């Protein structure tokens, strides 16, 4: 067990190292310069440009820049080029904004997908299954922002509920209960939107796993023992079908940073996705690189967690 953990950590660290190199190269080798050092930019005089270059070591060769950047990253000193704030602080702020969206979305997705998928599998071919299948396909195929706009128009016109942004402007003067309700209203639509696509995909996957498990011999044995259908489906079949999902659970970790640029843009939600998007536009290298690094670290941590979970949950794999 320990050797597995050790090997895994080493491999993942090496991968992270390579990811950092690749992302660094992509950013710096792409044509175009950050707006702050672009000689065409009329806002900055040549002296400011030069100072900027010196400050951020942009005149040094690439590998030196690389070392400087990561030294700053690990000591927490990286600073955004756009507004001179500490990058880590910025990320943390936006992360806190994205977090409720992420949690609510994930909760909705995972709690709804399983019952839908299981019921579809057990009553395969029936009305429920066919309807659920069709709806899933519909939700997967609809362009995200199109669906968002339809939902917004519908909700605003029928329920008169505020949807844009994280909270209604000026609500800080209202009572706590109002504020909480307001927050919840604002949270609802974006997370539901994000969740629908997830539910569609996940429930299909649950269904196909359940179908595969239901066809196994040990389900036949369970029936032959005289167990009730509930025991057969939920104790025997589901427990086996659950295995890949436990591992998937580890992989939702990267979603923390990912967020969805599109949803955040539509709802003007000040989250991680939008920050990264704006950084890309402004060629704010420190922000882009840091976000990239953190997200890669999360992906690797996520795969590590899911490998561990798989070890724990499947008795056939014991190291």
């Amino acid at each position, binding site marked *: 067990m320990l050797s597995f953990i050790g090997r895994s950590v080493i491999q993942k660290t090496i*991968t*992270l190292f*390579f*990811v950092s190199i*690749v*992302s660094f190269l*992509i*950013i710096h080798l*792409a*044509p*175009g310069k950050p707006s702050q050092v672009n000689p065409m930019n009329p806002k900055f005089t040549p002296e400011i440009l030069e100072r900027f270059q010196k400050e951020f070591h942009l005149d040094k*060769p*690439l590998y030196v820049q690389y070392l400087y950047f990561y030294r700053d990253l690990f000591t927490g000193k990286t600073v955004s080029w756009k507004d001179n704030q500490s990058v880590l602080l910025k990320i943390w702020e936006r992360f806190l904004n994205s977090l409720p969206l992420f949690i609510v979305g994930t909760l909705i997705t995972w709690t709804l997908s399983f019952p839908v998928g299981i019921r579809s599998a057990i009553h395969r071919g029936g009305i429920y299954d066919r309807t659920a*299948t*069709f709806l899933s*396909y*519909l939700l*997967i*195929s*609809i*362009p*995200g*922002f*199109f669906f968002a*706009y339809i939902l917004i*128009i519908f909700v605003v016109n029928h329920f008169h509920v505020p949807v844009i942004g994280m909270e209604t402007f000026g609500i800080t003067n209202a009572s706590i209960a109002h504020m909480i309700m307001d927050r919840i209203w604002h949270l609802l639509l974006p997370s539901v939107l994000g969740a629908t696509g997830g539910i569609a995909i996940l429930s299909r996957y649950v269904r196909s796993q359940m*179908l*595969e498990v239901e*066809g196994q011999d040990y389900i036949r044995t369970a029936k032959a023992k005289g167990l009730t259908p509930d025991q057969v489906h939920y104790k025997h079949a589901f427990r086996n079908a659950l295995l890949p999902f436990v591992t998937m659970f580890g992989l939702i970790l*990267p979603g923390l*940073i*990912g967020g969805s*640029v*599109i949803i955040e*843009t539509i709802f003007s939600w000040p989250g991680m996705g939008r920050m*990264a*998007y704006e950084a*890309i*536009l402004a*060629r704010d290298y420190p922000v*882009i690189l840091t976000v*990239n690094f953190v*997200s*890669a670290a999360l*992906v*690797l941590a996520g795969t590590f967690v899911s490998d561990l979970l798989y070890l724990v949950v499947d008795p056939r794999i014991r190291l």
Partner: protein
Amino acid sequence: MNHAEKHIDASDYIEAPLAPKRTRLQAFGRMLKQNRLAALGFFIFVLFFLCAVTGLILTSGTKPLFNPAMVRLEEKLRPPLSKPNLKALRPDQVPVLNVYLMGTDDLGRDVFARMLQGAWVSLTVGFVAVGISVFIGIFMGGIAGYFGQHHIKTIHILFCLCLIGGIGLIWINAASAGTALLLLCLSSIVFLLSARDKLPEKARPVWKGILLGNAVSVDTLIMRIVDIMLCFPSFFLILTVVALLPASIYNIMIVIGLTSWMGTTRFVRAEFLSLREQDFVAAAKALGIGNFRIIFRHIMPNAVAPVLVSATIGIATAILTEAGLSFLGFGVPPPHATWGNILSDGKNFIFDAPWLTFIPGIAILIVVLSFNLFGEGLRDILNPKLRERH
């Protein structure tokens, strides 16, 4: 028991009736009949394809039948099926059939014509992007799956690193360092050639042993590359590259293709790993058939099934990605029209001219839906395990 000794000749041997033979096409047709959704998907896919081709013909050239680029500022934001204001237009500005089938956009362009043109462009984006990703995926997956156990020697890795580093440095005009690295490359080649000596392992000096030793297997190397690529959230990667590169339709296609080959690689590798152990490969090897012929002629046709499924679904995803990129402003630049373009242009007028959003949105929905349905249907058809469960 004397019939055991009876001489059995050909006339006595009556074959018991077997199931009628079915060609692949018949099996395909039968499966489509059963899985109605997949059949619908296939039908719409064919329809879309025909639309795209006719659309291309009808809207290209200098005097096209439906002109997507004709700007008529007097006719801004007309609803669908409205008649053009003949008094305000020049004769060549009047649309065919004297009606705006799908209305006009904010520049007065005929939406129907733009949709026709956009069909072909969206289709191309989808197919080219998926083509690239499938090509890379099959290549990488095949090599990882088939040659997986071959090891790469340390000296080979050093050689490649020096080569890439040397070229890179020269490109950045660090000429001296670059040429130094390239010389290192040459020396390593020389070393390799000379290292084919007959000394037994133990007699080799230690440094030679390390340099010529196995560093990493092909399989590990390729899967690590896949892992690295997977660490980048795909949409961000595409967004990053597209935002940094000059906007062009080719860039978008290539970038989407270059960032989605990982799934195919995994599938192909898994299939190759299992197929490689099968008896037909051993039989082919025993007949003396060379490696590449085995890969392409024998194993590949069997491994293609999951690739087809993911390719079909990949086209759908590529079209959706392009729509998303257009929404953020990084889609295919004008004057090309794509459905994503039209949709995202329409978002500014959603209350005044909802048809600008709804028409392309629903069109994308139907086409992507059909691809997804068809892809899932293909998966059911091509999956022998699932077939029996019917």
